[in-house]
């Protein structure tokens, strides 16, 4: 009889995680804290990618600064890890520069909606074909637990020692108002639903925004009496209400609830395609690809 420990060694990494093949193995382990929701989000993303029948090799990942923005550095694809809040503007140039690329942005609540809020709404307005995956943990994790634009009122953070007095952003409402053609929200307690929404977002030929409400047990949880990852995920589960049900509920009933689901899937003409069309009208050709090597 083999001991339990020995048996464990016979389980390959691929068996432990079928998505390990997508990782830059030489960069592991990650910097993420144990219990962080980013791992669940990466798995849901890779599952969504597979079900959209897309290849990670054809994906360009762009990110800004923060825990969530470290994701692209661990995945085996072209990745651009930029400045704080500016990922979407870099992604805009990348997509317009080569519309054949599938461009996905990994960002967080601080990166996307505080310092990068302006780029978020303008990219939504343009309807440029980018898929934004915003891992919202309601706190600045990388810098040690400061209040963020999505921190619930009254929640504790190192810079909100008496509880947050700010009104948090509803990111889905924000991007829909700005013109996003696809928007969905799930929590890390909904990995399967999340992967399906990521798939739908990837397939939308336009600006797609997917919010992943995620746990930061290290900072948000510890500050707010939700010390374990499981207690946070349990809280997400208990407080989530599907959009279909929420549509029939009052504001008071929805107080403190997380509305999950797909909120909009309303395609309209995509931005880089409009630039292509202008080029075809004015020059008779598509926009030139990789011209720096030719002219």
């Amino acid at each position, binding site marked *: 009889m083999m001991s339990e420990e020995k048996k464990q060694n016979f389980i390959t990494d691929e068996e432990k995680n079928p998505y390990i093949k997508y990782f830059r193995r030489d960069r592991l382990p990650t910097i993420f804290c144990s219990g962080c929701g980013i791992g669940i989000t990466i798995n849901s993303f890779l599952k969504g990618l597979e079900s959209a029948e897309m290849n990670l090799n054809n994906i360009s990942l762009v990110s800004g600064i923060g825990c969530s923005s470290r994701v692209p550095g661990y995945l085996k694809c072209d990745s651009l*890890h930029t400045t704080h809040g500016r990922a979407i503007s870099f992604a805009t140039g990348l997509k317009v520069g080569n519309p054949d690329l599938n461009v996905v942005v990994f960002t967080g609540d601080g990166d996307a909606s505080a310092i990068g809020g302006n780029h978020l709404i303008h990219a939504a307005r343009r309807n440029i074909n980018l898929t934004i995956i915003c891992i919202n943990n309601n706190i600045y994790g990388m810098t040690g637990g400061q209040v963020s634009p999505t921190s619930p009122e009254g929640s504790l953070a190192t810079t909100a020692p008496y509880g947050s007095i700010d009104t948090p952003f509803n990111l889905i409402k924000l991007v829909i108002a700005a013109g996003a053609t696809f928007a969905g929200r799930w929590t890390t307690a909904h990995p399967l639903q999340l992967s399906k929404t990521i798939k739908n977002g990837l397939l939308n030929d336009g600006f797609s925004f997917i919010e992943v409400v995620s746990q930061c047990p290290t900072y948000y949880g510890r500050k707010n009496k939700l010390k374990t990852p499981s207690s946070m995920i349990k809280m997400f589960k208990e407080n989530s209400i599907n959009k279909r049900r929420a549509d029939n509920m009052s504001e008071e009933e929805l107080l403190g609830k997380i509305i999950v689901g797909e909120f909009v899937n309303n395609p309209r003409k995509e931005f880089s395609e409009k630039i292509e069309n202008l*080029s075809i009208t004015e020059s008779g050709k598509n926009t030139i690809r990789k011209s720096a090597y030719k002219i």
Partner: protein
Amino acid sequence: MTTELFIQGNEACAMGAIKAGCRFFGGYPITPSTEIAEYLSINLPKVSGSFVQMEDEISAIGSVIGASWAGIKSMTATSGPGFSLMQENIGFAMISETPLVIVDVQRGSPSTGQPTMVGQGDMMQARWGSHGDYEPIAISPSSVQEFFDFTLEGFNLAEKYRVPVIILADEIIGHMREKISLQDKIETFKRVMPKEGPETFLPFKNIENGTNPMLSFGDGYNIHVTGLTHNELGYPSTMSPEDHSNLVKRLVNKILKNRNDIVSCDFKYCDDADIILISYGASARSIMGTVKIGRNTGIKIGYFKMNTIWPFPEDEIAKISENVDDLIVVEMNLGQMVHEVERIVKDNAKVHLFSEIGGTLPKPEDILNKVRELL
């Protein structure tokens, strides 16, 4: 074959960009640079290029960096306030070695200052505006012809050394109209793909001449590009003193060790001069006029026009300072490049500042009065 045109400086810059191979412009309107964006919004689609008006100057340079990594020669144009907003991403372009061109059509400053008047207040910002150690290339045109030529040269230098190149123009050069000659045949520097395949290629290798071949996103190399200190593979290595030192020194040395290839200056009558006038940009026109009048009246003066601002033309300035007693630096700020000249000249000669701010070009007669005081 040459073609002659009578055009505005900003138009010449935009034409030069297209000739250089620029096929992406990301920008934000700002006086006195806007005509560059307007010209390119009309003409980029005609050459299968892309024009995007971004939401601010931060995203403008962000988009330019993104487009450059897509394999497109890319640029933006702005003035002081927008140039200030771009500084963080200029640092990103430096550490990620992204070729691009930034045109800064300078106006009266600080802050919003004098939007429609000339100034040269951004000289040191071009050198030190972003945080950290880096070595930019900045060139400064003094005529409409040079605005065309230097934009073209700017793209070639950006590609050759994988570095952001700043064209330090000013309101006068941007808005004046002059005759320019265009050559039919123009040399452009084409980006070079690595010879090695994805398995063996080190995109940020610590090589002797400093500049690695550049691949694009979508080439199958699974490259990681980050603003963090990175190793030769491009992976973050933020706690290694060795990796950091190797990276930053390579970035700085790839410019400094090629100073002779990059630096360009024009000078005249310096051999027998008692006094040499030094300037750049629009005010270089003032010193050339001053020397002409001065020589006609028997005053032995010469001029030295810096085409390259950064890296600073150290050897050239040191050489001309050997045989004169006085150097006068003429600039449209309260003294920026004069400190660089002092740093190089040391005790070889006396360095004086002729400063003119407020939005008017220094007058040759005023400069001559300063010359006469020193004789």
